């Protein structure tokens, strides 16, 4: 779909860790900010400060349009999805509260929840099927009188399995629970509508499918919910400077300190790239690649593929193992012999690997982006076949 000159013949299949390459526009926007804008957003009234603030506002506006958020000021800009999830978890939960999560969660959800548990929050981890899918009926069964929220991933970073968020959102609404969705893997490559899916809190990162640089991310907070979520970081916001207490309004309540404006400038360009290509086209291309890859490796003897194995029910993330081989060794051979970049191991999601039965050695994970091609997929299938046979390419 998109042609770009890759460094040597590198095949980059680690987009779930961070997307690469980035669109050239991302780099241009960052360079332009440093060279020509440079001001601190929201801090001074001069034109360079205002121009910087306009870049930041533009990002909020584009993100709000992407997720069908009614007001750009409902978007808090953060360093990454992890920071966003920490705000949601530590800001919202108090001792005595009960929360529901799944056993497919990344440690960005699981670790802060376990830390909250140590402070007196009760947690129910709903088991998912071996394909990584949660049964919404099991979520209903887990609800108690003191249940406050549901924390769930939009799609697994290990198997790519897409969770039934709209169904869970409906359950959350019916029981007056806060639904917090971890969209680290989906924002930018899968349609998200916070209204239709009844999402109250949406945590996302900028450096994956949104094609921004690392150090960017955000949190959508539904109108009014800021009254229930304490900030976890306090400081200067450029607003209400006469007060020595934190402002209570969005988004300043959660945005203390000078923001990562250069990163945000890159993120704006990344989202603009998605808009210009069309999210539907990007998704369609990635589904095609995922389908082609699944078809190819499922036919290889000795290869086990994990998850739902259906490109229409998963994001472009595929986990697999070659029988009798350590995933780390497979990944190293893919890199050294075939110049294919993958990620082996537990992918920061030990609970998910326990669900899949791949704990503690993990899997090899491929994750595609719209910059990947069919040709690369075909090469990768052949590489896996050769590694499986124990042969090495000359």
């Amino acid at each position, binding site marked *: 779909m998109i042609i770009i000159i890759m460094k040597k013949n590198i095949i980059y299949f680690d987009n779930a860790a961070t997307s690469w390459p980035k669109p050239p526009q991302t780099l241009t926007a960052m360079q332009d900010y440093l060279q020509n804008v440079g001001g601190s957003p*929201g801090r001074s009234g001069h034109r360079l400060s205002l121009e910087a603030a306009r870049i*930041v506002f533009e990002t909020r506006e584009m993100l709000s349009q992407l997720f069908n958020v009614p007001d750009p000021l409902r978007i808090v800009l953060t360093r990454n999805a992890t920071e966003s999830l920490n705000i949601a978890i530590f800001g919202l939960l108090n001792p005595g509260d009960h929360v529901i999560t799944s056993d497919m969660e990344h440690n960005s959800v699981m670790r802060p929840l376990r830390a909250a548990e140590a402070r007196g929050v009760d947690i129910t981890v709903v088991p998912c099927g071996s394909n990584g899918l949660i049964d919404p009926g099991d979520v209903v069964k887990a609800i108690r009188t003191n249940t406050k929220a549901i924390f769930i991933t939009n799609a697994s970073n290990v198997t790519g399995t897409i969770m039934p968020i709209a169904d869970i959102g409906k359950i959350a609404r019916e029981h007056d629970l806060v639904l917090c969705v971890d969209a680290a893997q989906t924002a930018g490559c899968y349609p998200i509508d916070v209204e239709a899916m009844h999402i109250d809190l949406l945590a996302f990162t900028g450096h994956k499918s949104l094609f921004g640089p690392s150090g960017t991310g955000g949190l959508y907070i539904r109108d009014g919910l800021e009254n229930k979520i304490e900030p976890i970081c306090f400081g200067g916001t450029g*607003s*209400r*400077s*006469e007060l020595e207490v934190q402002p209570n309004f969005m988004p*300043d309540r959660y945005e203390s300190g000078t923001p990562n404006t250069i990163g945000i400038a890159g993120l704006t360009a990344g989202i603009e790239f998605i808009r210009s290509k069309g999210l539907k086209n990007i998704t369609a291309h990635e589904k095609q690649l995922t389908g082609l890859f699944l078809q190819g490796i499922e036919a290889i003897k000795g290869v086990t593929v994990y998850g739902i194995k259906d490109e229409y029910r998963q994001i472009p993330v595929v986990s697999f193992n070659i029988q009798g081989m350590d995933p780390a060794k497979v990944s190293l051979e893919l890199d050294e012999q075939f110049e294919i970049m993958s990620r082996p191991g537990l992918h920061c999601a030990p609970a998910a690997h326990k669900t899949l039965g791949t704990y503690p050695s993990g899997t090899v994970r491929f994750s595609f982006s719209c910059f990947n091609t069919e040709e690369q997929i075909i090469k990768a299938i052949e590489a896996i076949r050769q590694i499986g046979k124990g042969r090495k390419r000359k």
Partner: protein
Amino acid sequence: MSGSPSYCVMLFKSVSYVLKAEKILKKENLPHKLIPVPKKISSDCGVCLRFEPNMREKIEAALFKKVEIEEICKLCEQ
């Protein structure tokens, strides 16, 4: 008519709100300017919107239920 030029300033919670208002006013072609908040109005270090008094009604209508306004002041230019 006193003869001395005057203008209105509209204050918001923070620069994000000012910029949201700016976008709407630009779209609607309503003349305005962003200026640092005059110290005699507020000790805040932010920016605010300045416009001609005769634009006030139109601007308020354009921002109604879209951007929360903190305060509107009429000032004489020195």
